């Protein structure tokens, strides 16, 4: 999974990469909403065209993204089968399983199509937006909400993303060290989990402690310099396209 292109930022000098993060995330919400509201083939076709255009201008490696779709194949097929079996309707002539209806298969196909579109929308946004920009966008959107410290939330998100690879590295190291000492010969799975979990937790807490000291010594404060955003004319075009797509899906 580590080699997946999905949900990984790919640094490029493309229109979507240079967009104002706030508008990009808003467009993602609009497009996801439109995908959820889509009911017929025409709606899905419009959305697919928009997503395909976005994919083209994003300059993301399209072949890798299509190849990586195999990671979601199980989920997509599962959704298709469940829909095909659960929705009642006219049975398919000459098909051995009677509970599979034409309506069910259609709904299953549309649902799978919806899933693929949502995965692609998320991939395009995450592939063209760095975590730093995401952090700033979250901060900006949370700012008007009372009783929530936007800086604290964004710092927490930032630190979570920072600590995950550190924890995973430690897990790998500890796991290898225990394997080298024949941990497999222990039959009790709970004990084996405990052998990893306890030192991992204690190490993580120690690392967190160090991180807190490092942040404190660099004057950590919630009254921080605020991010600056710049809206380009192209951003408005992308936003208009997204609004148009939602409107068309609702009207048609």
């Amino acid at each position, binding site marked *: 999974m580590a080699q997946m292109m999905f949900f990984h930022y790919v*640094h490029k000098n493309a229109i979507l990469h240079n967009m104002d993060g706030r508008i990009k995330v808003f467009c993602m919400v609009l497009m996801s909403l439109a995908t959820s509201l889509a009911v017929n083939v025409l709606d899905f076709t419009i959305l697919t065209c928009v997503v395909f255009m976005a994919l083209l201008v994003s300059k993301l490696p399209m072949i890798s993204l299509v190849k990586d779709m195999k990671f979601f194949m199980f989920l997509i097929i599962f959704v298709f089968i469940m829909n095909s079996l659960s929705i009642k309707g006219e049975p398919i002539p000459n098909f051995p399983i009677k509970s599979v209806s034409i309506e069910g298969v259609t709904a299953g196909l549309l649902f799978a199509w919806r899933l693929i579109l949502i995965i692609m929308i998320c991939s395009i946004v995450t592939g063209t937006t*760095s*975590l*730093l920009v995401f952090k700033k966008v979250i901060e900006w959107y949370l700012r008007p909400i009372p009783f929530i410290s936007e800086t604290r939330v964004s710092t927490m998100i*930032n*630190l979570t*993303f*920072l600590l995950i*690879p*550190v924890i995973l590295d430690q897990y790998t190291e500890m796991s290898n060290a225990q394997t080298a000492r024949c941990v497999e010969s222990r039959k009790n799975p709970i004990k084996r989990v405990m052998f990893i979990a306890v030192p991992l937790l204690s190490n993580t807490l120690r*690392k967190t402690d*160090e*991180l807190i*000291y*490092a*942040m*404190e*010594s*660099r*004057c*950590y*404060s919630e*009254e*921080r*310099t*605020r*991010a*600056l955003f710049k809206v380009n004319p192209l951003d408005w075009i992308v936003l208009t396209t997204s609004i148009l797509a939602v409107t068309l899906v609702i009207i048609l």
Partner: protein
Amino acid sequence: MPILEVQHLTHIFPDGTVAIEDINLKIEPREFVVIAGSNGSGKTVFIRHLNGLLSPTKGKVFIDDEPIVKNIVNARKKIGMIFQDSDSQIVGQTVKEDVAFGPENLNLPPEDVDRLVQKSLQSVGLEEYATQDPHVLSGGQKRKLAVAGVLAMKPKIIVFDEPFTGLDYPGIVQVLKQILLLHEKGHTIIVVTHELEKVLAHANRLIIIHKGKLVENGLPSDVIGNSERYGVKMPLRANEGVETLTWLK
């Protein structure tokens, strides 16, 4: 007037362990001080009092004649601290973002933050890595990044806690050159280490902490002969003069 003064500094942990006891010290501007001591001698606990990361049980720390407790943010601006584990002090997802962390905490205008980041990265020679993930840098580069993060806050004193731990030979040379450059530029340098052979040739003063007490404080050439008494290995060829110990050609 000393830039840093420590008076009767004592720290006792809640379980009763005495980490440091009655430490008195004065450091003049532009000095290059090495603080040595065996593992668990109290070196790290001591330096964490210098910018108020730990509060003493007894005693005071003064920077520019002002107690640090009076203005802790000011103390942290004046004393930059480079921790032993570079990985655990990285808070940004890119090199640039990590360096910007300090100035942003000071709520400086974005253009000032950018200027400081640019300048700090240039000072340590990491400007070409600005948009990279800090975790992919080499050990020496990570220490340089930590230095850049500290420089962006314009400190007068820079404290290095075990700066050579875990580095290969080129990494050590890289960090050592960086420390010397900072000293040349007028910063007061405090290096905490037990690897004296790597840095002592460049220091003005050697301090040894043993079992929480400051036991030696003087010219490196005067103190080095006693170091092994306190569990700090005396470098080979130290008898030929500490200035010959340099790792730089």
